[in-house]
Structure formats: structure tokens, C-alpha cells
């Protein structure tokens, strides 16, 4: 009896699953086991904790974000494969490989993982890697807070994946609409897992948002005023502004949902004076800006890539900045287009339909700016440019489909159909993911010192583009034919099966693309001697990151640059401007385990809250409070690098007298 109280809702049944889920748990457990074994065998535990897990270096945190995100991308990609397999098989008398309840969990976890842990992870990874160097500074504004953000992201991720092994996951879709997500209709802990993994990761994102706004506003190097910032930095500033305005709404909303489930409040219940549609409004007041949070940095990355590989200044810099801020503001005025069918009335639907069409205009401005940047440029079609071209084609098609959906009468027909699924995957795969892949490939030499294999890079990009077309064009057709999303079984008389099979083949091609992308990195690292970037400027680049050695030293700049123009590094190369070699001692943040420790508290808090284990939640809360107080009391947070060391490093990379 005592034990039962200590364990909350946990019991032996929480560990029983069907065969497919057991295979997943097995793979996960074995991976962790072999990774630990390898770390022990090579005696790398100390290195792992001392050099990486406790690191406050924004570049290392960025790399860790990307590693976690790629793992999550593969996991959620596997979910996609299961879904398409089910839909290709489950026709008529055949019911496929998955039970309905399991299928629901799989599409919920696919969406949640992809948005929160794959896309957001890639985004924060690249922002961490690039932004401080692009604005000519040595670190972010709050290095410790940055590690807290990352570790909260990781503990949210672990909590989500724990649901695979212990208990179940939400089957209520990636946004858990009530009343389905209320206790009455989802009595298991699945929705609570969803709530708490988002809650923890969401707070991490919020802290990152604050951190990068302050970094960009306060830590730019001398001479870099706002209108001289690289476009990627502008796009990050826009995206982070959206984060600080939108994420608190998510935090509040899912807290209310949790209270409904835990203590019986009536916020979103159908009875008792609750209002389920209020949840849908609130979640999209966060959810729509979230789409732009993801896409804006991708736009920024493409702006850098196009300018670099066209050997031209970015066309229409000022209009690009205005387009970003137009998107930031307008993105808060369109949320209702996610539920025109709510029945808000023709005038309300009309307003949101028109705003949705208007937001396509600044996006169009950006597309034309990129095209005009390429016009009469000396274009090199290297791998990042292939991603870019694929993006322009597929993203524009998806965007036009979006404008079609913005027309309320058309939306009434296409609402919740696979047409919609095809539309938003066009935005998020060929927009967001292509952008981040291009960014990783583009900046890879800077943070690793190794140039990536071009051939494999191009094959990966082409496979993704091809796979995307094969996987999602059939969905447009299926949607118009009436196939709804989240459907695990249909009648053969619909005639949908061939198209579902084609879409399934598309997923396999995308999977091949992901494998090629990973093997591009592994192969290039394996051949690192011949792929070494000895110049620090492999593309004849334009912005500050190419002015420092590759891999970037942990202090980034031995001498902080002084900026005179936009694309200052390019201009300084044209003018053959040389830098003043005035070295000074610099101080850098010391590594800290407190962020890692704090996030373990967040995990305990979340796990306790999911399973109603009160003591565990209290322990988690105390760990969090204790970590914050401990950090406040830490006096000695920085160490000094003497200028002699900086001079030595520079001589080693550039040679004597440069």
C-alpha cells in the first residue's frame, strides 16, 4: 500500500506494450547500452562530461542541439514510415500492422517530435553556432542560461521518449485538442507526457529567446549597427521576438489543460462552463507564430547562402528587413485560419482569410529578392545552393496551396484533409528542414574545420527533393479526393491505395536522403585530412565568420573586428584592408554542471507530474530552485586567456606575420 502511494499511477502494466513498441524500446535501450559501452571502452566519460556536457561554449551547445535534433528527426521519420506502411496496407479486410490506438499515438508523437525536438533543435543549434560569430562577439549574453535552455530541451526530449517505454503517449494529435485530450476521453498518462515534455522544452525555448535577443541587441562588435547585420541575424532577431511573445501563451495554455486533468478545473471541458474552442484559439495564438519562428531563420540562412554563392550583395537588404518585421507582426493576426470551420461567422473568417493572404506578400518579397540576388551573379551550384533551389520550387508550390486554403469556402472543403497535410509539410520540410540542412552544410567547415564532400551532399539534396515530391504530391491529390488526415483504415472502393503506396515509396526515398546526409558528414570526417579547411574562408565568403580560423577557436575572435560596411569581411578583402594587431587578454565563461543538474530536476518534476508521484515532483522543484540559487552564489565564473596564447594560436593557423 505504502509502495503504491510512492509510485503514483505507475504499475507493472505501464511497462507492457505490443510488439512494434517493444522493438522500439529495444532499439532505444540497446543504443544507450552500446553508447555507454563504447564510452567506457575508449575511456571517454570524463571527456564527454568535462568537454561537452558541462560546456558553456555556444558552438559546442549548438553541435549538441544538432545531434539531438537529428536523432529525433530519425525517430519521428520512422514514425512517418510506420504511418505510411499502415495506410498502404490497411484497406478493406486487411487492418494493417497497427491498432488504431497505437496509430493515434504514432501520428501524435510524429508531429510533436518533429516540431519541438527536430525542427526547434536544428534551429537553436544553428543559431547557437552562427549568431555570436556573425555579430563579431565571443559568446552569447548569458552563457549559463544558454546551457540551461539546451538541457531543458534535452530533458523534455527524454521525457517524451520515456513514454515509449513507460506508459503510453498522447493519442490526441500534436496539439491535443480538448475535449478529446481531457481526462474523460484520454484517461491514460499519454496527454500528460505530451504536456510536460512540451512544457519543459518550451521554457527552454523561451529562455533561449530572451538570451538571443539580448545577445543581438547588446553584444554586436564595434561599428556593426543594426542595418549592417547579416540577414541571418535579422531573421533570428525576428524569430526570437516571436518566441518571447508566443511561447508564454503555450506555457499558460497547456498548464490550464493539465489543471483540467489533474485537479478538475473546467477550462476546456465540454461541461461545467468550460470552453474547448478557447483552447483551440489559445494554442494557435502560439502555434501560428511558431511556424514563423521556424521558417524565419531558414529564410535568413538562404539569404546568406544565396549572396555567398552568387558572389553578389543580397538584393534589397532593406526590403528584406521590412519583410521580416511585417511577417513578425502579421503572424499574430492569422491564427484563426486553422479553424475556419469553428463557425465564427463570415466576417471573422473573412478578416482572417484576408490577413492570411496578406502575409504571403512579404514572403513573396523575399523570394523575389533571392532570385534577383542570383540574377547576373557568378553562381556556384554547390550543395547548399541545391537545397536552396529545391526550397524555392517546393516552398512556392506549398505557399500557393496555402493561399488557396486561406479562402474560407475552399477551406471548408479541404479542412482536415491530406491536402492540408501536404501543404504544411511543403512549408516545414522544404522550407524549414531544407533551410537548416543547407545551413549545417554551409557552416560545417567553420565549426569542425572540415569541408564536406560535395558529391554526397548534392546526392542527399536531390534525394530529399525527389523523395519530397513523391511523398507529398500524391497527398494533394488524395486530399482533394476526400482522404482525411489521421486515418488508419479505408474502403478499397475509394481507390486511394495506389497513391498511398506511392507516398510510402516517397518516405523511403526521403529516408535514403537522410542516410546520405549523415554519411556525407561521416565520410567527410573520416577523410578529414584531405578535407581540412586550411584558409578559414572556403567559399570566399562575405560575413565575419569566414574571417576567423576553421574550426573557430573557442574564443571566436582573437581580436574583435571593427565593422565599417554590410558584408564587411567581403569589403575588407576587396579593399585589401588589414586588421590592427592589438591583442588583449580576454575572459571566457568557465564550464558549469549546474545547467545539467537543473535539467535533471526538471525531468523529475515532469515525470512526477505525469505519474502523480508528488514526492518526486517536489524533489525536482527543489533541485531546480537549488541550482538557480547555487549559480547565483557562484562568484568565480570566468577565466582569463592571456594574449600570448591568442598570438600563438593565430601564428599557428595563419603563419608568421599575418
Amino acid at each position, binding site marked *: 500500500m505504502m509502495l503504491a502511494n510512492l509510485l503514483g499511477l505507475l504499475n507493472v502494466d505501464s511497462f507492457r506494450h505490443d510488439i512494434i513498441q517493444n522493438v522500439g524500446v529495444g532499439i532505444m535501450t540497446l543504443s544507450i547500452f552500446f553508447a555507454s559501452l563504447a564510452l567506457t571502452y575508449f575511456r571517454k566519460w570524463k571527456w564527454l562530461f568535462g568537454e561537452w556536457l558541462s560546456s558553456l561554449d555556444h558552438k559546442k551547445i549548438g553541435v549538441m542541439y544538432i545531434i539531438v535534433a537529428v536523432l529525433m528527426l530519425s525517430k519521428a521519420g520512422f514514425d512517418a514510415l510506420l504511418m505510411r506502411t499502415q495506410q498502404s496496407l490497411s484497406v478493406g479486410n486487411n487492418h494493417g500492422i497497427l491498432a488504431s490506438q497505437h496509430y493515434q499515438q504514432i501520428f501524435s508523437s510524429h508531429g510533436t517530435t518533429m516540431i519541438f525536438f527536430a525542427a526547434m533543435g536544428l534551429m537553436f543549434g544553428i543559431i547557437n553556432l552562427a549568431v555570436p560569430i556573425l555579430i563579431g562577439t565571443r559568446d552569447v549574453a548569458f552563457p549559463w542560461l544558454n546551457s540551461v535552455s539546451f538541457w531543458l530541451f534535452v530533458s523534455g526530449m527524454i521525457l517524451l521518449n520515456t513514454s515509449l517505454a513507460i506508459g503510453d503517449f498522447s493519442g490526441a494529435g500534436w496539439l491535443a485538442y480538448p475535449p478529446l485530450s481531457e481526462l474523460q476521453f484520454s484517461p491514460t498518462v499519454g496527454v500528460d507526457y505530451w504536456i510536460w515534455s512540451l512544457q519543459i522544452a518550451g521554457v527552454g525555448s523561451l529562455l533561449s*529567446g*530572451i538570451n538571443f535577443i539580448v545577445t543581438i541587441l*547588446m553584444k554586436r562588435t564595434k561599428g556593426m549597427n543594426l542595418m549592417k547585420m547579416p540577414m541571418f541575424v535579422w531573421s533570428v532577431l525576428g524569430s526570437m521576438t516571436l518566441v*518571447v511573445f508566443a511561447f508564454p*501563451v503555450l506555457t*499558460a495554455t497547456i498548464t490550464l489543460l493539465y489543471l483540467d486533468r489533474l485537479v478538475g478545473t*473546467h477550462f476546456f471541458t465540454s461541461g*461545467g462552463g468550460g470552453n474547448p474552442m478557447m483552447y483551440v484559439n489559445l494554442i494557435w495564438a502560439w502555434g501560428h507564430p511558431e511556424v514563423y519562428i521556424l521558417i524565419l531563420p531558414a529564410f535568413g540562412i538562404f539569404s546568406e547562402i544565396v549572396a555567398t554563392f552568387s558572389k553578389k550583395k543580397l538584393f534589397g537588404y532593406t526590403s528584406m528587413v521590412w519583410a521580416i518585421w511585417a511577417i513578425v507582426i502579421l503572424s499574430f493576426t492569422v491564427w484563426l485560419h486553422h479553424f475556419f470551420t469553428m463557425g465564427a461567422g463570415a466576417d471573422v473568417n473573412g478578416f482572417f482569410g484576408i490577413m492570411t493572404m496578406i502575409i504571403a506578400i512579404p514572403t513573396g518579397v523575399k523570394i523575389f529578392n533571392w532570385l534577383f540576388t542570383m540574377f547576373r551573379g557568378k553562381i556556384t551550384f554547390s550543395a547548399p545552393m541545391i537545397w536552396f533551389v529545391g526550397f524555392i520550387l517546393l516552398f512556392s508550390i506549398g505557399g500557393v496551396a496555402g493561399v488557396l486554403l486561406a479562402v474560407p469556402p475552399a477551406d471548408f472543403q479541404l479542412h482536415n484533409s491530406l491536402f492540408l497535410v501536404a501543404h504544411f509539410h511543403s512549408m516545414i520540410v522544404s522550407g524549414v528542414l531544407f533551410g537548416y540542412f543547407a545551413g549545417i552544410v554551409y557552416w560545417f567547415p567553420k565549426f569542425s574545420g572540415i569541408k564536406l564532400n560535395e558529391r554526397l551532399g548534392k546526392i542527399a539534396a536531390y534525394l530529399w527533393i525527389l523523395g519530397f515530391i513523391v511523398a507529398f504530391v500524391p497527398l494533394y491529390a488524395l486530399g482533394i479526393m476526400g482522404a482525411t488526415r489521421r486515418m488508419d483504415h479505408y474502403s478499397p472502393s475509394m481507390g486511394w491505395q495506389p497513391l498511398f503506396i506511392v507516398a510510402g515509396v516517397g518516405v523511403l526515398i526521403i529516408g535514403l536522403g537522410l542516410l546520405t546526409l549523415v554519411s556525407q558528414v561521416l565520410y567527410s570526417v573520416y577523410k578529414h585530412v584531405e578535407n581540412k579547411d586550411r584558409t578559414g574562408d572556403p567559399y570566399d565568403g562575405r560575413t565575419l565568420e569566414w574571417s576567423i580560423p576553421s574550426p573557430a577557436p573557442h574564443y571566436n575572435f582573437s581580436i574583435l573586428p571593427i565593422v565599417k560596411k554590410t558584408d564587411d569581411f567581403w569589403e575588407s578583402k576587396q579593399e585589401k584592408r588589414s586588421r590592427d594587431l592589438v591583442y588583449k587578454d580576454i575572459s571566457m565563461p568557465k564550464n558549469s554542471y549546474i545547467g545539467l543538474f537543473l535539467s535533471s530536476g526538471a525531468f523529475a518534476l515532469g515525470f512526477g507530474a505525469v505519474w502523480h508521484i508528488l514526492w518526486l515532483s517536489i524533489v525536482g522543484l527543489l533541485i531546480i530552485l537549488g541550482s538557480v540559487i547555487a549559480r*547565483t552564489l557562484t562568484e568565480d565564473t570566468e577565466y582569463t586567456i592571456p594574449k600570448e596564447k591568442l598570438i600563438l594560436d593565430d601564428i599557428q593557423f595563419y603563419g608568421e606575420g599575418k
Partner: protein
Amino acid sequence: MENNLVIKAENSKSYLGFWIYILTDCVVFASLFAVYATLHNNTNGGESAQILFSMPLALTQTIILLTSSLTSGLAIIAALNKHKTRILLWTVVTFLLGSLFLFLELREFNHLASMGDSWRASGFLSSYFVLVGTHGLHILIGLLWMIVLGLIIIKKGLTAKSMKGLVMFNLFWHFLDVIWIFIFSVVYLMGHMGL
């Protein structure tokens, strides 16, 4: 050196960051106010705000909280004058006023719940308890913060770092005041008028 402690350059990052944090918290409260505005008529057959809430109590709470904001401001003035005991004195007064406020709020919550008007009763009461309770939770965090800040000042004196903490605490405390003014107006005043 003396008065520059407040505006020391290395602190300005933290201040900007803290202002943005306050903005995010404003958005949390904005969401909760929106929820209250949507649900405040959904009484589910129970009593409405007009009958349930006591104006004299809400007014007393308001006066207590506003006074605590004054005393926490006095702590800043004492800090600018480098008067350590006075900082501690005013912080203790602020702490006591904050605790009294929280005590009155919890007493009202307890009273409502014991009458059967708990957060389970209706959408209206759910949104009331969570909106006002979230403010109360912030007050609790402020109280904990004051304890830590007071101990640091006792132990290490008035360093640049503890000054930074004191200024940020004041921003936080005044922010809670502003939120309370909105709660007082929207929940209690408008409720009293039956709006």
C-alpha cells in the same frame, strides 16, 4: 562609482534580459486574463462574482501590496545611499507586507472552497482561481527571492552583484503590483458592478 552601481555596463545586459522576461510574464497574464474574460459568465448555475467577492478585502489587499512596493522602493534608495541596515529593514517590511497579502489571499481561497465554490465548481471559478492564484504564486516566488537576497546582502554586503539582484527584484515586485491593479479592476471592480 557610488551611484553608478545601478547602471554599471555589465549589468545592463541583465536588466534588458530581465525586462524581456517581464514581458513574457505579461503575456502569460494576458492569456489568463483572456481566459477569465471568456469564462467569467460561465457560472454553471453557481453564484457570480458580484456575490462571491468581497470588495473591502480586495481593497485591503491592494493597499497592502501597493505599500509593499513603496517599501521595496525605499530599500533601493537605502542601497543608493549605501545604508546596509536600512536596506535590510525595508526588505523585511516588504517581506512582511507580501506575506500578509498572500495570507489574505489564501484565506479567501480557503473560504470560497469551503463554501463549495472551488475551482471545480465552474469555468468562471476555475479561471478566477488560476488567474489570481498565478499572481499569488509570483508573490511567493518574490518572498523566496527576498530571503535569498537578504541573506546575500547580510553575508557579502552590498556588492555590484547584490545591487543588480535588488534592482531586478524591484522590477519584479512593481510588475506584480501592475498585474494586481489589473486583477483588482477586471476581477473585483468589474465583478462588483456585475459586468
